[in-house]
């Protein structure tokens, strides 16, 4: 709790992989910064302090700073995760930060997940393909309460990109659709408004860039900040896709 006495303050060493691709002279390099840790310090606070005190040009992305928006995915000590909600007290005193791989680097810790996700969304058409247009004035279509909860469970994805960065397949093959896209298809498949059949889905993910490319390394499942059941959803889709004929 906030009024507990803090343990002895540590000095944190942050090693940050810096590179500005906009600048032709820039080469990737590790930069080191030292900070006094204090209670409740998150990587959001630490990075802002570094920018404030030492390095005004340091680029990183935070928006909600509450673990909700998915902007601040980065590689923290080798593992992709959300920086804003990572308390420095959960890390050793030497912390390495690198941008998420597999995405286009904008600069330092900032990567372009937005365009990647848009491309994925266009490719998989990750939206409801409605059977009929909704009558806005009439009672809504009924849905079983448990089904709504089940859909929300998968709908919680924040497109932070951690699953892509943690995926061996996605790292090796850039056309691989990744867990984020597969989870979305599983989510829309559950939705009773959805008009797409499994055969339609096969056209999108029935190959080695799709669900069959997944080698079940489960990096995605294990780093997902929202703890989405990616393992079971991908397995489910795989079963559905091999039975399409």
């Amino acid at each position: 709790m906030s009024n507990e006495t803090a343990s002895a303050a540590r000095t944190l060493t942050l090693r940050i992989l810096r590179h500005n691709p906009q600048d032709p002279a820039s080469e990737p390099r590790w930069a080191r910064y030292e900070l006094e840790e204090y209670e409740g310090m998150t990587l959001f606070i630490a990075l802002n302090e570094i920018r404030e005190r030492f390095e005004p040009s340091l680029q990183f992305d935070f928006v909600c700073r509450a673990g909700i928006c998915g902007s601040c995915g980065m590689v923290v000590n080798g593992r992709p995760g959300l920086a804003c909600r990572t308390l420095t007290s959960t890390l050793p005193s030497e912390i390495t930060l690198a941008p998420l791989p597999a995405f286009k680097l904008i600069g330092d810790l900032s990567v372009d997940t937005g365009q990647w996700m848009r491309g994925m969304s266009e490719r998989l058409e990750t939206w409801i393909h409605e059977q009929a247009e909704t009558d806005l004035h009439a009672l809504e279509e009924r849905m079983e309460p448990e089904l709504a909860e089940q859909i929300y469970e998968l709908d919680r994805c924040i497109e932070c990109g951690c699953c892509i960065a943690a995926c061996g397949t996605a790292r090796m093959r850039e056309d691989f659709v990744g867990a984020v896209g597969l989870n979305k298809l599983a989510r829309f498949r559950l939705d009773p408004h959805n008009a797409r059949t499994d055969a339609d889905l096969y056209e999108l993910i029935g190959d080695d860039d799709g669900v069959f490319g997944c080698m079940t390394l489960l990096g995605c499942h294990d780093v997902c900040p929202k703890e989405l059941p990616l393992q079971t959803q991908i397995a489910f889709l795989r079963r559905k896709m091999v039975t399409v004929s």
Partner: protein
Amino acid sequence: MKIVYTDVLVIGGGLAGLRTAVGVKQRGFDTIVLSLVPAKRSHSAAAQGGMQASLGNSAMGSGDNEDVHFEDTVKGSDWGADQRVARMFTHVAPKAIRELAGWGVPWNRVKQGEREAVINAERVVITESAAAHGLITARDFGGTKKWRTCYTSDGTGHAMLFALGDQTVANAIPVMERMEAVALIHEGGRCYGAVVRSLVSGELTAFLARATTVATGGYGRIYRVSTNAVICEGTGTAIALETGVAELGNMEAVQFHPTAIVPAGILTTEGCRGDGGILRDVDGHRFMPDYEPEKRELASRDVVSRRMTEHMRKGRGVKSPYGDHLWLDISVLGKEHVHKNLREVTDICRYFLGIDPANDWIPVRPTQHYSMGGIRTDHRGESTTLKGLFACGEAACWDMHGFNRLGGNSVAETVVAGMIVSEFIADYCADSASDINVSTGLVREFVERERAQLDALVAGRGSESATAIRQRMEEIMIDQVGIFRTGNELDRAVTELEDLLRRSRNLAVRYPNPGANPELVAAYRLPKMLKLALCAALGARQRTESRGAHFREDFPQRNDRDWLNRSITTWPAPEASLPKLDYEAIAVTDMELPPGFRGYGTRNHIDHPDSPARHAEIEKILQAVDADDRHARQRALMPFDHLLPEKYRPRNQRLETSA
């Protein structure tokens, strides 16, 4: 000079902006959305608890309809709202919910049979009807007569934003990310688009459009502690102000949310209290019933926030290194409910506080949360003074919230306003009056002016630190333009903010890169934020009454006689250091619901002289109308149907046909 043409330029990729873009696109117009961040990362995603719409499906919402929602909204606004707009809003909200359900938002549903709930810290059994099974359910929120807040667990904004983000892709609407509008291009009272800076390359582009829509959300970040995302710096509102033409409304109306965690300032949803959570003080005493015997924790946000602050001032707060706080106790709801229906809250507590809210109390205190003020528009969403400029969502003062917004009405406003305003924008674009014949000379002038300002900053001749000035501004705002305000403090605030604004014209940037440069961005945004801060502070200084979220300790009464109006600020000239303040009267004579007691808070106001007459008139009008036909009664008092786009006029079907 790069120029991009489109029909509708939408600045802001949150719920309001995306719904507007989808609306105009479906009407056949070209549109481009500009967003500081990937659209799905917008602050709309942080709305947790839900969206108000009077579906009346659940047992506790039974008997709900537009009339009840309207009354709650107007009372919540402390009669500051435009009642016609509030009517349009409450009428379209159920349609918005249903549209979103069709787009895949997995609204929680009614489950027939008995279920346990916590009301007023007691376990009660609610029986849901079989007829309602599978329809969209609702939870309780502050300041509402019925359980009206539709939700998807506590990730409502997220689910809505992702559904709309998906629709944006489905409609092939381009969203240009990391693009910031830094100035509006306008001439002769007509807006032609915006000068836009790429946050990646620093390049300036002119976007020209028939209609320009600002949907950039609130300006919470002018306060030191805010629940708002770090991008909520109000720059969209500020560039409208900087035209010198567009008006801002009610900038002093700033809402504080009762329950943000300490010290991070991250929101825990009102759903915590709606679902039965209670507030406790240093002794573990539940204090809200002492102040608000009827609504208790579920009075409107302005009232709860004030009561909490009042209680802490009495020394009943919990001391902490980060200042006093109180406790929010949701452990009374039981582990299953907390972990399932308040999952986001559970996550936030786990990651930022290291506690499990199913067992532990959450340290909370009131924190800046919402900007009722914004670009003043008519009911169509168009600026009252700058043609071709539209605004919707939190960035606008449309004005359905008046001086206090009800929980659950903000996400509702975003999509409802997007639905309505996009129709009017489309109508406008279809009219030849919206044709743009602007000279490239004018465009060049606007682009060059921005470029010159940026170059001057990068040249590094200034001496002031943007960070220091900004921190001071944030402190002034939270300390002197916060929950409790007094004339003296506001005087000092205005004077000092003025000084800060002058100093902000001489900023130093250490890192001379015109491209991606966080320091440069902070520097050019600062004067914009200071102008908004001045609008809020001056508005608060001049308003010598207390209304909704604006509370003057030296003028604790709501004064309808002198202050039943909207504060209107404009920026007279670029070199000015103070906004120009005017007032727009709110007429009692045609109100459907004339001013009275809200039903919570202090019963203490000065009547408007027209109020008794209007009350009598209403009584007379209603005598002549069938007492059972609520639609006819409403129409007789204050017709609004004709203000709505035709497609949204039909009535909303409900389970109970009498509703």
